[in-house]
């Protein structure tokens, strides 16, 4: 079957109790033989001396004396012993001793009569109690047993051997011997007092060596301390030894098994084996073997350390086997700490504690706890196998009914000891209620509800204090109530002063009186209170339609706190003095109604309705009382607010109404309104709709009994901003020393504030002068006029120079800042007097010269004829042809540019982004232009204006929003024919047909060398309308195959000539070609020219 046939064989030890069961008589004899003898001094008779006389007693009744016969006396010769007392009694002598009843104190003469041997001789001695030794009978061991698991011996014996000596003290001596050498292991003394009865005594002894390891023997003796006995007292003889032994099995076994010991104690382990044990170890540590008997060995460990959960292993290695055992070293339980007892429901007491120091013992050796109430005597036990880590221990104690005071003792026990801690509690003061559950809310009306909940427990004897937390949107309220505890756990309270149609969240927690702990909060319960009728009518206003026939009623939705429910509809009715005229129902999302009224004097009432009923009506009179002296005021706000004030008006009886709207909206315009009480003189208007830079109209109405009167009209800004546009202005008139400028108003939307004035700048200057840009830098030549009269619309600038280009700039400003600028270039007229003088003097000089010449010629006509008209004039003498000649000769002195005193002209190259050319020359019939940056060769439609005559008027409109943008437009107006009629042309006259405006075509009429003309006509049919160079084009063509002329046929490049007619910032002929067009190498073209032109 299931036996661990470990190599250590089954224990074959048997308890060999070899009891000596001897007969009482034999025992008495033996004890008599082994008595200690006391030598009694005997006064021997002359006739013969008694040797070795000893008298003893074991019961104080009989003295037993023995001696050796005197020398010479034959054996068996004594026949009687006589004591010389009153009776003179004689006792027959038995063998070698005589039993004499105890004699009274004092000396007694004892005569021993010998019948034979010495012929009737006798011996005498004196006997006294003091010469008699008291030697108790040998005690008898009743039982000797052993508990091997605890290595404990149990010994029992009785005091029969000393029973005679009542009330005497007896000292017992017990000895324990152990094999193999019968060494004395232990001797103890044990004192008792005799009571006269046959008492059994117990003695227990725990061996340090397990009892299985060796045979143990026990013997006992006693010593009777009898007070009234005068003689010497002596120990009894040792009882026969009894032994305890273990029947060894065939298997080797180690002992003690599964012993629980205190950490730090000393302990001996042995191995009972039939074969040789090689080594012994505890855990990993080997210990020296102590040989017992046979093959049994032991090891001894001192100061054992705490075991792990499964215990410390002790292993003996035997030849071909092992034997082992486990010891559990730990601590006795610590005193339970932080013992705390409370109840949740007054039904059970829950006690918590902390176990303190770990014992190191688990499983069946783990600490168990007993909680005992000493008043009721009830107890509960806590037992767990595994150790709880970091967890407080808990026990539930069922409360006996009607008991309030408890004296609770918690006892911790484990195999190593026990400890306890106690607590005295009045349990009604230690109540921590459970979490309230089943919280329910019921409506009573729109402001009162009942709360009911379940709180498990029997609180009939105490009061509960509960806290109700009432949450509504954005607020929290706590309510403390005291309720009498009930047995059935159901509680109900009424909560009032709630708001109608409001979602509340209730939750509750409870404690008891006196306060100990709050329960946890119950889960929240949401509840919507029922609706009530709206507490107020809606805030109402009315506006007459623009035709004055219809009255539009506006009202604001009621705030939730006044609506008291969901507003379903509004009832609008109007009544005059006579009757209620009409009534209409408007469903909720709409907050206006339009009424067609016959008269203008009605009272309009508006009622809001929810499911609970209608609100009180809010009334408003339709009549608008006219006000004649109405002025428009201005106001500027702060932040998002605007403050309006007005003087108190006693006529206003009901209230003031301020309505406002965006001034750009059409009438009737209403953004919002605000009512203020009639006693106030100011109002702060605030709205999220207000935007800075937007003009609002505010109207203050006063309410009188008949109706509303408009008291004030205010225009205002929440915040003023700078205008976003510049005023449009034109030059009305120009003279030689003055310019008259006229401008227009800026629209309100673009003004963005109250107009505070204009700044007018003027400055001499041409267009595109970079320094023109900076107006604020305060150049001395910039003149500024600040026009603060906003009604002024014209300005004459005087003291100007004639025929000078001026730049004019106009800006508007508000308190929010300066607006953008708009600029224009104007050239003043020439001074007419100077002009006349300038014409008249040359004419006069010419006339005089003519007259003088005519006179001279008339007088010298013959000489002249001979000198000047003899022949056809020699062309070489003609200076006018000198230039042409030098060109023809290829001279490097290409003096054309220098020698021809030309009027400076402009070459303007303007870029445009739009497909429609924004820049054009209305005067030049054939625009010659290119878009140098975008296109290299194609798109002949995009032209560059080459102005030929000095511009008369230039207008520049600066775009402040896009000063540097590529879209900046510049316009050049060239008017050659009407030089005396300068005028500003708006830039949007761009759709004038350039051909229609054909005017000045000077190059076209230039006389051209006929030979050249013919070839040009053939090749350049398309370019005939174009500009003709004043120089002979042929001269270039001859030297340059890539000359402009050669590309003309492709219409890509319009031939252009006469470098002397161009006043350009760029030399038309590149510097490399300084000497001759020949050196150009054919790369010279207008295409190149424009492409090479840098971006300026």
């Amino acid at each position, binding site marked *: *079957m*299931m*036996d*661990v*046939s*470990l*190599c250590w064989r089954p224990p074959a030890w048997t308890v060999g109790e070899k009891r000596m069961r001897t007969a009482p008589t034999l025992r008495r004899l033996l004890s008599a033989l082994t008595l200690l003898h006391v030598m009694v001094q005997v006064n021997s008779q002359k006739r013969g001396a008694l040797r070795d006389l000893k008298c003893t007693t074991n019961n104080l009744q009989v003295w037993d004396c023995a001696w050796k016969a005197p020398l010479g006396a034959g054996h068996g010769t004594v026949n009687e012993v006589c004591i010389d007392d009153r009776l003179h009694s004689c006792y027959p002598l038995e063998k070698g001793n005589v039993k004499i009843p105890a004699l009274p104190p004092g000396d007694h003469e004892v005569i021993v009569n010998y019948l034979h041997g010495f012929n009737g001789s006798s011996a005498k001695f004196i006997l006294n109690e003091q010469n008699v030794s008291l030697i108790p009978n040998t005690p008898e061991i009743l039982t000797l047993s052993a508990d091997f698991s605890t290595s404990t011996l149990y010994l029992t014996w009785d005091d029969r051997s000393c029973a005679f000596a009542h009330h005497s003290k007896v000292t017992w001596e017990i000895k324990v011997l152990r094999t193999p050498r019968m060494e004395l292991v232990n001797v103890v003394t044990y004192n008792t007092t005799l009571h006269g009865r046959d008492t059994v005594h117990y003695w227990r002894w725990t061996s340090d060596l397990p009892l299985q390891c060796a045979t143990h023997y026990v013997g006992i003796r006693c010593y009777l301390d009898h007070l009234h006995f005068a003689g010497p007292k002596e120990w009894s003889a040792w009882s026969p030894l009894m032994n305890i032994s273990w029947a060894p099995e065939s298997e080797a076994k*180690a002992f003690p*098994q*599964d012993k629980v010991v205190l950490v730090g104690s000393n302990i001996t382990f042995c191995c009972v084996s039939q074969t040789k044990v090689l080594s012994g*170890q505890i*855990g*990993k540590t080997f210990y020296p073997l102590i040989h017992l008997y046979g093959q049994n060995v032991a090891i001894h460990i001192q100061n054992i350390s705490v*075991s*792990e*959960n*499964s*215990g*410390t*292993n*002790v*292993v003996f290695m035997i030849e*071909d*086997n*092992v034997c*082992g*055992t*486990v010891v*559990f070293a730990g601590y006795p339980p610590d005193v339970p700490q932080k013992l705390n007892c409370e109840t949740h429901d007054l039904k059970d007491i829950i006690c918590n504690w902390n176990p303190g120091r770990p014992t190191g013992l*688990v*499983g*069946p050796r*783990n600490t168990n706890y007993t909680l005992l109430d000493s008043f009721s005597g009830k107890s509960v036990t806590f037992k767990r*196998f*595994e*150790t709880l880590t970091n967890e407080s221990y808990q026990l539930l104690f069922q409360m006996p009914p009607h008991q309030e005071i408890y004296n609770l003792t918690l006892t911790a026990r484990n195999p190593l000891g026990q400890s306890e801690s106690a607590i005295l509690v009045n349990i009604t003061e230690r109540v921590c209620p459970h979490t309230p559950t089943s919280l329910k809310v019921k409506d009573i009306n729109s402001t009162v509800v009942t709360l009911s909940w379940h709180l498990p427990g029997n609180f009939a004897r105490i009061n509960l204090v509960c806290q109700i937390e009432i949450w509504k949107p954005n607020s929290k309220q706590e309510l403390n109530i005291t309720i009498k505890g009930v047995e059935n756990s159901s509680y109900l309270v009424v909560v009032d002063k709630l708001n109608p149609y409001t979602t509340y969240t209730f939750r509750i927690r409870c404690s008891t009186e006196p306060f100990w702990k709050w329960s946890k909060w119950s889960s929240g319960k949401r509840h919507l209170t029922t609706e009530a009728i709206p507490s107020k009518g809606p805030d109402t206003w009315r506006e007459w339609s623009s035709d004055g026939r219809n009255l539009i009623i506006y009202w604001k939705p009621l705030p939730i706190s006044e609506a008291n429910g969901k507003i379903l509809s509004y009832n609008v009715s109007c009544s005059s003095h006579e009757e209620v005229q009409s009534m209409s129902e408007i469903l909720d999302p709409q907050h206006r109604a339009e009424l067609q009224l016959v008269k203008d004097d009605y009272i309009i009432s508006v009622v809001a309705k929810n499911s609970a009923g209608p609100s009180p009506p809010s009334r408003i009179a339709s009549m608008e009382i006219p006000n004649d002296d109405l002025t428009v005021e201005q106001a500027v706000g702060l932040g998002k607010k605007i403050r309006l004030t007005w003087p108190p008006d006693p006529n206003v009886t009901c209230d003031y109404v301020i309505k406002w709207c965006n001034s750009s909206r059409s009438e009737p315009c209403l953004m919002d309104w605000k009512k203020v009480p009639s006693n106030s003189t100011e109002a702060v208007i605030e709205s999220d709709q207000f935007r800075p830079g937007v003009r609002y109209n505010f109207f203050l109405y006063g309410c009188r009994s008949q109706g509303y009167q408009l008291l004030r009209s205010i225009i205002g800004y929440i915040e003023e901003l700078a205008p976003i546009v510049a005023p449009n202005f034109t030059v009305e008139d120009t003279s030689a020393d003055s310019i008259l400028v006229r401008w227009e108003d800026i629209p309100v939307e673009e003004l963005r504030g109250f107009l505070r004035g204009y700044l007018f700048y003027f400055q001499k200057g041409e267009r595109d002068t970079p320094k023109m840009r900076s107006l604020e830098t305060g150049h001395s030549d910039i003149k500024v006029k600040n026009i603060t009269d906003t009604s002024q619309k014209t300005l004459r600038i005087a003291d100007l120079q004639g025929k000078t280009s001026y730049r004019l700039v106009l800006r508007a400003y508000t308190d929010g800042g300066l607006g953008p600028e708009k600029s224009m270039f104007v050239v003043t007229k020439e001074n007419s007097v100077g002009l006349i003088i300038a014409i008249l003097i040359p004419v006069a000089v010419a006339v005089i010269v003519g007259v003088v010449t005519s006179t001279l010629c008339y007088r010298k006509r013959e000489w002249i004829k001979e000198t000047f008209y003899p022949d056809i004039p020699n062309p070489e003498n003609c200076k006018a042809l000198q230039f042409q000649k030098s060109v023809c000769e290829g001279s490097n002195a290409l003096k054309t540019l220098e020698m021809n005193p030309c009027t400076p002209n402009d070459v303007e190259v303007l870029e445009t982004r739009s497909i429609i050319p924004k820049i054009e020359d209305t005067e030049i019939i054939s625009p010659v232009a290119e878009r140098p940056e975008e296109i290299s060769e194609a798109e002949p439609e995009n032209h560059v204006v080459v102005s030929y005559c000095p511009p008369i008027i230039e207008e520049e409109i600066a775009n402040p929003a896009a000063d540097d943008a590529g879209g900046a437009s510049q316009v050049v107006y060239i008017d050659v024919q009407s030089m005396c009629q300068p005028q500003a042309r708006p830039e949007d006259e761009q759709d004038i047909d350039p051909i229609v405006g054909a005017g000045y075509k000077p190059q076209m009429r230039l006389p051209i060398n006929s030979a050249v003309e013919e070839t040009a006509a053939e090749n350049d049919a398309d370019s005939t309308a174009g500009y003709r160079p004043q120089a002979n084009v042929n001269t270039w063509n001859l030297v340059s195959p890539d000359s402009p002329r050669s590309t003309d046929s492709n219409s890509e490049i319009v031939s252009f000539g006469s470098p002397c007619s161009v006043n350009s910032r760029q030399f038309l002929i590149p510097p490399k070609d300084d000497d001759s067009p020949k050196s150009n190498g054919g790369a010279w073209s207008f295409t190149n020219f424009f492409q090479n032109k840098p971006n300026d």
Partner: protein
Amino acid sequence: MACHRGWSLYLLSLLLPLLSPAAPISPAEPISQAYSLALYMQKNTSTLLQTYLQYQGSPFSDPGFSAPELQLSSLPPAAVSFRIWHALDDVERLSRGQEAFLALSQHLQLVGDDQSDLNPGSPILLAQLATARLRAQGLLGNMAAIMTALGLPIPPEEDTLGLVPFGASAFERKCRGYIVTREYGHWTDRAVRDLALLKAKYPA
């Protein structure tokens, strides 16, 4: 823990054929299933043994601890000479395996009980012992399925433990547990070989 649950499901699926009414089925399938299970068990036996020893304290937990001389009379040893093993026929092979795993499953229960006294605070060890027992029972069921498929009588379940020596000392319990977990590994190794042989004999 998840793998344990998954394993239980696997076992359930393995045991399902047993629950269905006996029908002549090919032995290949139950052999294959049993072989898979045995292979799976084989992967965890050394872990079980190591975990077990680790909780028993020195010298059990010392590295390289081995005590092959320790045996339990109630547990048939897995060690067998190759000649004898090879000479076994299918019936003997299967019935010895069944006998061993029946004993093992009972012994593993005993060891689990012992350890819940000695190491109550070691859920890992207790869980591994419980799992090993479950697997032994699973393999037992698989072997029964093979025997059914081969038309062999299934030996009745025996109480191999008999009278449990409840008074065994802690040391005896530790040794007993060691022998059981060790033999569990040995028997699993042997079962893998047995089943591999059978698998080769009854190809799918």
